[in-house]
């Protein structure tokens, strides 16, 4: 009888203890995960006038929170891709000499269609739509 009572109290204490620990750990972990960013998701940005861009050159622009690389090709046409390398997150650059997109982190190459052609990148870069209206450039997501 006495043993039963002791056992019962021990169980109670155990449950209480676990509950106490859980009720400390849970809020701490939730606290450490940052709240979802409230920035609105962007679907298009203005990139200025076309004469700002020389042929065979590129610029990295901010598309919401994401960097996007806008390239003016030899033909004078524009293309835009996500500038975040699909390998490990570095930011890519346009090479004027080879006319390719290079990621210097681990020497990954993409062609001007954004396709991963050599090095470690496992996937092509996401393409963005570039439209030119009255000499003004607009970059938007492919979905519109």
């Amino acid at each position, binding site marked *: 009888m006495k043993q039963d009572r002791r056992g019962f109290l021990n169980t109670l204490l155990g449950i209480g203890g676990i509950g106490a620990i859980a009720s400390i750990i849970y809020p701490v972990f939730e606290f450490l*995960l*940052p709240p979802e*960013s409230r920035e609105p998701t962007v679907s298009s940005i203005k990139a200025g006038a076309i004469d700002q861009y020389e042929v065979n050159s590129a610029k990295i622009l901010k598309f919401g929170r994401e960097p996007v690389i806008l390239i003016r090709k030899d033909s004078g046409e524009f293309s835009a891709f996500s500038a975040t390398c699909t390998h*490990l*997150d*570095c*930011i*890519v*650059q346009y090479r004027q000499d080879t006319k390719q997109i290079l990621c*210097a982190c681990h020497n990954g190459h993409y062609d001007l269609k954004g396709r991963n052609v050599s090095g470690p990148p496992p996937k092509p870069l996401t393409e963005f739509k570039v439209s030119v209206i009255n000499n003004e450039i607009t970059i938007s997501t492919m979905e519109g």
Partner: protein
Amino acid sequence: MAKLTDSNVFKWLDERVDLSPLTKLLYHKKVPVHSHTIWYYMGGVTLFLFIVQVFTGILLLMYYVPGENSAYESVQFILNKVSFGWLIRNIHSWSANLMILFAFIHMFSAFFTKALRKPRELTWVSGFILLLLGMFFGFSGYLLPWNELAFFATKVGTDIAGAVPFIGDWLKILLRGGDDVTGATLSRFFGFHVAILPAAFTIFLTLHLLLVQRQGMSEPDSFTKLPDEKKKYISFFPDFALRDFLLWLIVLIALLALTVFSPWDLGIKADSLASAPEGIKPEWYFMFMFQTLKYLPPHIWFIEGEVFGLLAFGAAGVIWMVLPFIKIKKKLLIESKYYFYIGVFAIAFIIIMTLIGYLS
């Protein structure tokens, strides 16, 4: 040398708070003298470098300001304007790297002298945790100056953490404080670096040192086998401790020399809209893992090569940590003939992969 216990201050204190447990801890330990005695100093050097880190780190804190628009500038200020700022910052950087190097040397010397055998299993476990914490110290400190190289190395490092199965995404956000490496990451790393890690490190360090003092130094087989009259010892305190201090002085001079002749570059400020420069490398003590991941094919069996690599390193780390407990066919691994080769393989693997990482 006059005995510490003869001083009046000691007697005064001892009358009020019995100091005998402390003197026992200090005086009872004897250090065996033999051809491998030099390895007994490696832990002490690591300890000294940690003390240097705490000391210089606290000084840096007086001027360092975390934040995307202030971190780089404040380190620049420390370097250019603050008297001896260059000295303190460079010692902190050099000592950080040497601390990890000596922790590795210390660990392998414990391995090869079989110091991790019963009763020192927990000393080994706590030591390995200290090494991991030290590496995390380095990883978090590296980002603090907010320069370009560190920014991209952190992007890459945390992205790799994101590949861990199941908890990867969660881990990445936890480390970055968001989806990307931003000012939020810097705040977090600062918190890890100056609060969480120092606290955790101190706890494990205390445990590690208490165990060492209580258990005394392990004796290698070649020494145990000697007849009693051939076994030579010196006392830990003051004989060994004085030699320790002498070595610490030499290490301090080496640190100063490195600082003066080979200062650390601050580089250029991180810019989240700039292309990554060439030469992004993890810190040297992550290089062997990073290089190994590069060599893995995209797919191994049914999982991604990178994930496979991370799991393999994780498993190797756990095995290494519980090494003193592992038994094969009822025999401790430490006593088996493979033991020596495991250590040689581990060292060779680390050194070769690191070299390839730097040469390729």
